[in-house]
């Protein structure tokens, strides 16, 4: 059973009766524990594909099976429920909540999953410890460097132990050393069983994964198994 199965996915925007296609007839399968990289030039539809996988966006046409469940037939409520238990997101610009401390940012997904208070504390403490950021837990995002912020971003993405991590250019705003650290971290997570799909421009980062999918103008033009 594949983790993700996409059949004939189309995504377009209509304005003034003209359809602009972002994704055209995308088909793919991602098995559990894979580390897949989506590459392609700007505007190729990489992020859109990622958001569709993350159930934050809906395709205009096509079928999406997540662990054999038909996502395209689900109500928004069911999708939210599935998404919050299964998927963690990492962004290029971190997207930490400015008004919340490091601790509170990491805690937030657990709040929305109604995890019990004692259990929640344990989970956050565990992550802080693993990522070596216990000392920074009371700081606000603007008090951290970019690398540290992305560390918190990843910590927040995995705190609820998702099966799938979707990373949208996770190192895009970082210098090379910080970037390497983040990529190493993702590799370790993958080794421990988490499926990872990342979008990147960098071939170097792509080599951390086991498969590269190349998109151009919304179509898959090439697949490379590493």
């Amino acid at each position: 059973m594949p983790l993700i199965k996409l059949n004939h996915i189309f995504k377009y925007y209509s304005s003034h009766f003209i359809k602009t296609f972002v994704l055209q007839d995308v088909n793919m399968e991602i098995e559990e524990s894979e580390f897949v990289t989506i590459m392609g030039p700007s505007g190729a539809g990489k992020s859109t594909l990622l958001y569709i996988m993350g159930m934050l966006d809906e395709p205009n046409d096509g079928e999406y099976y997540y662990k054999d469940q038909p996502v395209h037939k689900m109500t928004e409520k069911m999708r939210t429920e599935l998404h919050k238990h299964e998927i963690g997101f990492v962004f290029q610009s971190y997207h930490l909540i400015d008004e919340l401390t490091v601790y509170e940012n990491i805690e937030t997904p657990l709040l929305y999953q109604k995890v019990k208070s004692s259990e929640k504390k344990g989970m956050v403490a565990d992550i802080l410890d693993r990522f070596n950021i216990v000392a920074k837990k009371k700081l606000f995002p603007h008090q951290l460097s970019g690398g540290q912020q992305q560390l918190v971003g990843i910590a927040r993405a995995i705190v609820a132990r998702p099966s799938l991590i979707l990373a949208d250019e996770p190192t895009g705003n970082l210098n090379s050393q910080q970037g390497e650290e983040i990529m190493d971290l993702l590799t370790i997570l993958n080794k421990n069983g988490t499926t990872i799909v990342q979008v990147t421009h960098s071939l170097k980062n792509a080599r951390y994964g086991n498969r590269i999918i190349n998109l151009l103008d919304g179509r898959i033009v090439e697949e490379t198994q590493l």
Partner: protein
Amino acid sequence: MFKSYLKIAVRNLWRNKSYTFINLFGLSIGIAATLLIVIYILFQFSYDRFHVNKDSLYRISVSHQNEGKLEYESPVYTPSIGPTMKRDFPEVEDFVRISTPRPVFVQYNGTAIRINTACFADTAFFKLFSFELLAGNPRTALIAPYSIVLSEKTAKKIFPKQDPLNQIITINKRAQFTVTGIVKDPPQNSTIQFEALISFSTLYRMPNVYMGWNGGNQYITFVKLNRNTQAGKVDKKLPGLMWRNFNKDMASIGLVDKAYLQPLTKIHVFYDNLSGKTFLYLLIFATVAILILLMACVNYVNLSTSLSLKRAREIGVRKVLGADKYHLIMQFLTESFLLSTLSFGLSLFLVELFFPIFTNLAGVEISLSNFMQVKLALISLLVVFLVGFLAGSYPAFYISSFQAVKTLKGIFKTKKGKQGLRNSLVVFQFSIAVILIISTILIQRQLNFMNNMDLGFKKDNIVVLNLPYDEVRQKSTLIKQMLLTVPEVQKVSLCSAVPISGFTQNGYFPEGSQAPVLIHVVDADKDFFDLFHIPVVAGRKFSSDFQTDKQAYMINETLAKSLNWSDPIGKTIRRNGVHPVIGVVKNFHFATLYDKIEPLIITNRPVNNQFSTIAIRAESANWPQTIQSIRTVWNRIVPTAPFEYYFLDQAFDHLYRFEQRFKNIFFSFSLLAFLIALLGLYSLSSYSTEQRTKEVGIRKTLGASTMEIIRLFARNFTLLVVIANLIAFPISWYIMNTLLQNFAYRISIGWFTFVLAGCISLFTAVFTVSVQALKTALINPVEALRYE
């Protein structure tokens, strides 16, 4: 979870301090205004609720009809109806008659003290009502004739030192009364007000007091119904009783009296005061309060939807982290509820601060502690909830519907439609503000109109003296002669009353009419007309040259017209003899301006041959001195009688004090509403200029002048205020036209008020926006562009 909502709410409020302040300020003023009005309304509805029997007590009111036409309605009626009802109706457990209050003069130990409101009351008074007797026996205090129960305050005045109980006092220098009780002063929220109660049995000992069915309308009757008796049951039986005792005899001349029950607790708001219009006024106040609150909420809605752009990313992130709509709605509602709770706390301080000013404006003496009660607490809770919900729900639903993908990709823009909503809310606010401004101006104009209206007589520079009792009245002619020796005094007239709040009515038979006609009457000597500058339009006024003038009548134009007398001189009117009409006076307003000028007879012979009032016209540069001279004359002739005077024009102002208070309250709250609208405009324009700083920078580098920048911002908001005015004009015209119908004599609304209100609103709005725009326009364009 709630803790987390609260935390983020606090941090957000803190981060946008200036907007938080504007919201807090507007909401707390709105809530404070609402609470003050709620307290006022609660007070008005608290009237007569302190009686234990409040739910089974009713007042009897009678409408008097002539030939099927309503003449007037009043609870003041004959003394017979109460006893008859108790005899005939098993549902009526008991009754109390209370006479209309009258001033009496009490003598004790050589001092004279005036009691303004002494009432005759039946023995059952203390059984039915819950006025607390501080001394004496409630069951027996009002049994024996010539018993008097004094209010606490009155008792202290007459007996500063000794125990008043069982003391003998003289009233009006005529009769002696025994003090049989001291009663706690009636609270302000009691319809029944008195300073002394005299046993009803005393009336039966007095000569000339008519106690039958055909007149002597001086008594207000209250009945207590048996437990579980519906008032409607008694109301159904009353026509039969009225027919047997009164209407049967009067049917031939077309008179019908219809009696019905008024629940005691509804009297103040629904029946008495302002001819039962109190409820309407309270309704207006409540509406204004709700509008102010709504306007404050609108500010919150406008500001938070504007600011939501800044928070779009946070919403997106939260959605990615698994928040569903419910979580986000709860988060934003927490924010608005926090703000409304904070505002409520602040408003309590404001209420405390403004309470004395408010009670002064409203003319009520209430203490705030009286209202620290469950009802107010519940209403407060409701207000907090309502504000939190009204202000918070739209932003909450709106913001939580943001699409995560768009907010995260940074391509998020608020929809054009939301701009439309904000604009319509601004229009809504300003429409209300303009309606309130127009209403305030019109109410003020109506009051000015009433104060300056040509009443048909001159009310300035007139001092009025009351002649308290027979001994003084017998010397009235002498007092008049002596007063004329005071240099400043120009004219003095003896009369039964001065034209201010209406003259008494009697039944008369004008020539050619078979049935008695109720006509107003005043007794006056010959100088009345010159003193008040009332012109005689036909015939002549009373003269001392004709001995027969004592029997003569003068009438006003309305009476002549209503009797279709084209030449009234020489016609006769019958009442205790036949009286020739010798003159017709030009119409003058002897009652309030709520009423049209009604028919009037002026007689030259007062009741018991004694005038009870002296009117003095004087020209004085030093009124205290003049009053002192008048007092000296008084003291020389009647040294023991209390000297009491008032200025007619001041009494006139007093007559419209409720309208004046209404205007005061209305004006204050309109001002508040307008301020809140401006505050909203200020924050919106401050936000919009902040948003467009870059645009302004570009425009300036392209050569736009400061003036052009200001115009750019002011144009949109000015348009909104103009639309608001156009909406407000017809609505306020309709409202005020309806309200003014209550006045028989009223201003015409005219276009000027609308232009004025339009100018006020436009000028202040443009000014508010321009200040903001100027700030942005003055930023160095280089700074503005680097800002991005």
